[in-house]
């Protein structure tokens, strides 16, 4: 009988182990299949794939590369982070350090709910609600901060710009950055806060001395997870970006594009080389986000024993 019992256990264990293996196999399969289907495009373009800005894979002669797309992806994501970091970290601090417990929990749930809004809804909302209402701010920035290259707008038109996309991305990354920051701040022992207050610190001094220093690593990890999301976001960006292929820091100018948005916009009309080229650009995106996510996870693991609940 005891042999039967051990047999049952062995089988069950193997089955669950196989399910775990599926996760690893999936990641590996993604890499393998993307590489395999990207090879035809790489054959056509050669190393020019990484330096060419235009995207005409199905024209003769073909001319395509990820330079402008990768630039746009990183620019929009970094800009989004600049906007989201103070808001997300500030909101997380207010929720954990200032608000009464019940109110804090509710506000936290409300911010989490933002993650449930589908990206296509954000895109639609971006076009019809946000972009028209941002025009005033954009014109103000372009007029008075013209001396900063980032805000100068030689085209003098406003609309579907990298800046608008960055604001939408900031809203979309807000819940994950705020959730991780909140989780990290909660890990700080209550005693540290009380010690700071007992020494006569004001609330802000308590936050600066007792809460922020031990949380630094975890918050940085959360920000990097947000970066990963912003780099890979597709549909919202495809809807609010002007889809041009150029490298410019004039973020208020209509235009710009990202790797992910370009795949969504060009896939339907692409021919064989075009689709292979899109897969090749997706491979670049996969590599970038994989690296960012792995680094972020490692940082989050190391800095705190943060409950990974927040990370979904």
């Amino acid at each position, binding site marked *: 009988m005891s042999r039967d019992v051990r047999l049952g256990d062995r089988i069950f264990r193997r089955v*669950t182990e196989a399910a775990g293996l599926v996760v690893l196999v*999936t990641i590996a399969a993604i890499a393998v299949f993307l590489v395999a*289907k990207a090879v035809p495009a790489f054959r056509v373009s050669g190393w020019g794939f990484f330096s060419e800005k235009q995207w005409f894979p199905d024209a003769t002669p073909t001319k395509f590369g990820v330079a402008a797309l990768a630039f746009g992806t990183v620019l929009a994501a970094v800009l989004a982070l600049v906007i989201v970091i103070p808001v*997300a970290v500030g909101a997380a601090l207010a929720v954990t350090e200032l608000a009464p417990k019940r109110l804090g929990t509710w506000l936290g749930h409300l911010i989490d709910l933002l993650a449930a809004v*589908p990206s296509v809804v954000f895109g639609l909302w971006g076009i019809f609600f946000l972009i028209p209402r941002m025009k005033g701010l954009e014109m103000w920035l372009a007029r008075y901060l013209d001396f900063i290259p980032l805000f100068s707008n030689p085209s003098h038109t406003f609309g579907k710009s990298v800046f608008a996309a960055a604001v939408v991305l900031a809203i979309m990354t807000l819940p994950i950055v705020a959730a991780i920051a909140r989780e990290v701040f909660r890990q700080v022992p209550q005693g540290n806060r009380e010690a700071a207050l007992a020494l006569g610190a004001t609330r802000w001094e308590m936050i600066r001395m007792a809460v922020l220093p031990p949380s630094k690593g975890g918050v940085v990890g959360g920000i990097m997870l947000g970066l990963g999301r912003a780099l890979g976001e597709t549909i919202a960006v495809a809807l609010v970006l002007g889809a041009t292929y150029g490298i410019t820091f004039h973020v208020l100018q209509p235009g710009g594009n990202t790797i992910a948005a370009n795949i969504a916009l060009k896939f339907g009309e692409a021919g064989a080389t075009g689709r292979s080229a899109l897969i090749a650009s997706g491979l670049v*995106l*996969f590599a970038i986000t*994989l690296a960012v*996510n792995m680094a972020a996870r490692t940082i989050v693991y190391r800095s705190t024993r943060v409950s990974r609940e927040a990370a979904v």
Partner: protein
Amino acid sequence: MSVATLTAPVSLRRPTLGRGHLLLLAAATFLVTLGLFAVTPLNGVADFIVVFGVAYVSVQTAASYAIEGGRVARNRLALTLLVGAVVLAVLPLLAVLVYTIGRGGKAISGSFLSQTMRGVGPLDNSGGAYHSIIGTVEQVGLASAISIPIGLLAAIYVVEYGRGRFAFWVRFFVDVMTGLPSIVAGLFVYAFLVIGLHQGFSGFAAGMALSVLMLPVVVRASEEMLKLVPNELREASYGLGIPRWRTIVSVVLPAASSGLTTGVMLAIARVTGETAPLLLTAFGFDSLRSNPFHGPQSALPLYVFQQAGSAFDVAVNRAWAGALTLIAIVLLLTVAARLLTRRNRLAT
């Protein structure tokens, strides 16, 4: 001389700004801002709020600095900014919900939910999303059928058996996979199934892509719930001579069942709203296709995206109606799942 210092009126109370003072400051700032908007070319409600906010924070900080000193002034400034951050963080959700309900509520109708796009011209004010809703239900159903069992088993492995290197890597890559861009999942299934195995576009391909996105979410959520099951329950079961696998199936899983349901519902909600992978797998279709295994199919998020790209108002209205339907489904699932958590006896 020493007597003089001893009897000098020393106040231990530092001067502070009370609530009344702050209200007074706010009122004064409000009036000044109003005057500024009357005289200068500044206008607009949003601009007023911004200018007033900035002005009030500066005035409050200056007054506090003069009366209460630098430390208290810095404290006031920082706390005000933190409260401002919370307001800014909650605002987008309200704006998205209110605007979507407003635009979608006007556009939605019974016929929108019961008609397809078959034979609808670009300027026709008819047509609906029935075929897309069916597509979404089938695709999400297929994704759930693949991801939930595998995800649950993987979570059991990680929590109940997971020691050592292999378990660490499973855990690590589950976390990394939660950050996989959804378009990459679509490209993968396109490369592997649609052209790799020559299956062509189909609802099943979409279900595969969604399952890639769903799997890590199910594992993560289930893992968290299984960890909450107290070890005493397991030990009591072992003590009765019950083998490990029976303990897991008949003791641990039932104990965690409500939490597991929550996790699964959240995972379903998350993939229901995914659009990008569907472009490359389901591709989209104007008529009803109830067989998900053959030929391109529509889906609700895809439908919204495609209608939103049109230049015509009738299509944009359809997009809003679709967006409202989508957001209603997803938020209902999410909120229901969260409410279920509160009834979970294991969750703290």
